[in-house]
């Protein structure tokens, strides 16, 4: 049963991807991309990757679509139709695909518990996490403690994306000074009744859910990245309904920059504190006399840092695109 469902999902993925490439209207292409991400998330869920499914849905389908639409509104609606000689490209691409497919025939069977990928490191994580870290969600344990250095790097990837977008979109606009496309007091979708009512109803629940995901990440799927994305999308929903100005009044730029910098700083400082207390960088066991408690404390703190930075960064990126329109 699951097999049929999975095969169906995978085939839909391929069809959607081809549709994205062929769609001439960019708005259609972006919407199809959102569908692609959701299908991918469903697939991840079938493959037992709950955390990843949540992240792909929140970030891939949610935030990426918003940013694409923001950029689309500032650029073009349609792709120019060009007749290109694509023969060579198709040949190269098909050849590479065939090479890849050939390589798959030697790969270990899907789901085979004796495959090398399931030996060595993975069973150690599964068996030792309850003893060393004491939390049920092994993915969070690996992300937050065993491979916390990678996660620190990831936080800074979000950080640099935020800085980069801010840097690029705060440059003086050299093109012709057009009259502002929408008045600075644009009020979003306030005059559309259904979005307004439903949005207002949903907004507090979205925030609550985001907080739940943040703090429950150790016991179930969740964690800082997903939570940050969910809370950010909630506030973006608010901005879409009530207008950007009111959203900025609620959470101004200075607070956002503070969040972005503060979260990253918090994470790094947790690591430095552990160095100062005698352990290596990001060794949480030294935080308290009970190393397991120390690990849990460390994970909560860094996940909080991650959530704050991701939320601030995504909101900053959104506002940067939205504000460029009025530049």
């Amino acid at each position, binding site marked *: 049963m699951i097999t049929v469902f999975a095969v169906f999902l995978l085939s839909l993925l391929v069809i959607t991807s081809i549709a994205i490439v062929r769609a001439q209207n960019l708005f259609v292409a972006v919407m199809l991309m959102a569908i692609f991400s959701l299908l991918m998330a469903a697939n991840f869920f079938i493959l037992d990757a709950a955390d990843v499914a949540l992240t792909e849905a929140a970030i891939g389908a949610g935030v990426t679509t918003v940013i694409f639409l923001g950029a689309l509104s500032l650029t073009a609606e349609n792709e120019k139709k060009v007749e290109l000689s694509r023969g060579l490209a198709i040949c190269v691409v098909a050849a590479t695909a065939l*090479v*890849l497919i*050939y*390589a798959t025939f*030697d*790969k*270990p069977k899907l789901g085979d518990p004796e*495959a*090398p*990928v*399931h*030996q*060595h*490191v*993975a069973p*150690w*994580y599964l068996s030792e996490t309850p003893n060393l870290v004491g939390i049920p969600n092994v993915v969070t344990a690996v992300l937050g*403690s*065993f*491979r*916390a*250095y*990678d996660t*620190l*790097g*990831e936080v*800074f*990837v979000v*950080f*640099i*994306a935020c*800085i*980069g977008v*801010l*840097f*690029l979109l*705060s*440059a*003086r606009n*050299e093109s012709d000074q057009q009259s502002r496309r929408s008045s600075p007091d644009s009020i979003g979708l306030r005059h559309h009744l259904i979005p307004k009512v439903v949005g207002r109803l949903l907004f507090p629940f979205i925030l609550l859910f985001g907080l739940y995901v943040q703090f429950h990440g150790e016991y179930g799927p969740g964690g800082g990245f997903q939570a940050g994305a969910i809370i950010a999308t909630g506030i973006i929903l608010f901005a879409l309904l009530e207008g950007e100005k009111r959203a900025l009044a609620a959470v101004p730029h200075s607070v956002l*920059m*503070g969040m*972005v*910098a503060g979260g*990253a*700083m918090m994470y*790094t*400082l947790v*690591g*430095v504190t552990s*160095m*100062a*207390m005698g*352990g*290596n*960088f*990001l*060794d*949480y*066991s030294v935080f308290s006399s009970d190393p397991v408690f120390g690990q849990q404390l460390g994970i909560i703190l860094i996940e909080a840092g991650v959530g704050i930075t991701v939320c601030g960064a995504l909101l900053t990126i959104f506002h940067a695109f939205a504000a460029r329109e009025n530049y």
Partner: protein
Amino acid sequence: MNPSDHLAALQVVVLFLAAPIIVLLQARRLAWAATTLTSLLTFAIAIALTLGVLNGQDYQYFMGSWPAPFGIELRVDGFSAVLLLAITGASSAALLAGYHSLDQQIEAKRQPLFFAAWILALAGLAGIVISADAFNIFVFMEISSLASYVLVAGGPDKRALPAVFKYLIFGTIGATFYLIGVGLIYMMTGTLNLADMEVRIHDVADQSPVLVAAGFITVGLALKAALFPLHIWLPNSYTFAPHVVTVFLAACATKVSLYVLLRFDFFVFQQNLTGHELQFTFFFMPLAVFAILIASAVALFEKDLKRMLAWSSVAQIGYIVLGASIVSLAGLTASVLHVFNHAIAKGSLFLAVACLAMSFRGLRLNDIAGCAKAMPWTMGALVLAGLSLIGVPGTAGFISKWYLISAVLELGGGIAIFLTAVIVIGSLMAVVYIWRIVEHAYFRPAETEIVAREAPLGILSITWVVALANLYFGINPELPVTLSELAADALMGHIK
């Protein structure tokens, strides 16, 4: 807490601490000062690590105190030390010199963001070099790449934008190919730690996924290293970036990808894939030869200073790969040595160009005609750096070319003669394009009324310091040669 115990980690942690602070600073002078100080601090840490390595200390650091392969391991050895010196040194020199140049090219209110991006580029590059975990390398590779895109797009020239978009596309494809390769290896071995992979890959019964993985990793890293023919993103990106950014990136950015390539290849693949040494040679040697000849030839005809030097960089990467493709102690020593020496030579060349840019609006050869009268010191440094690039005896460039030719001659037979000829022709072409610059600057009359003055003391002094380093390491090459030999030993030692 004893800082010297944590030196390896501090190399990156210091930068991670600085970046959020710098982004919050409003005053651009303060942002520049903070960035430069942080960069100098990392340079000091790199020197400390190098001294430790020269004393025989083996730096091994476990993040979170989790043993490898369950946690992430950091490792610093001779090869890492060379690159750390090049990265942090180039960054510090560029920052110290670049205050006015950056001020000219970037709006004041955006500067703190720019400097935060610089710090993160530095963190990314340094993080790659000290890491011993394949996925960790990917994360830091992306940090450095994203930060570099921001840096390159920072200048006022609008042509930087399509250039950086192309850089983004190519860079992301390269990183994704690398990720596929790492995934395939993980699938076959179950580990991400490089040293562990080396051991476990022995037991892998089936070689074809490993071969495919090697292919993906090689192509991905070659894309990022701008190895011919995957170099097309480089000339435009280097040309249109802010001048000081070009100094930083040209000196070290692509070499880091070559570092990862060599590490992966020699540590993990060489002894485990039968006949891989030959594959390596057959694949890379021709590409290196093409890079040297074709890129130098294109540089001959270029009219824009920065673009000419960018093509020259592509050729120099060819030299580095040529040395590595010989798969011998001598070849690898020459290769790593050239990483170091090219960083100094190209760094000083681009610094001199940045000096010129302070007085001239355009940087085409015609624009700088006759400038030697007005800017004698700048041109002097440029000539000195150019001599090192060519490989004139007495300069650092000569030492690495000498080692390279010795390594090539070891091969013996027709191939040795052919490769020596290639190296000599490449150097002759370098003579020609450096001479074109010299000719325009010294011997052509000024086309327009030159109102140029000599470059400001700040940037000029740093340019001269780096240019003189060429001379110093040409006469006393003990430090880079020792480090290179250590590196070559480590790499070759894994082929047994």
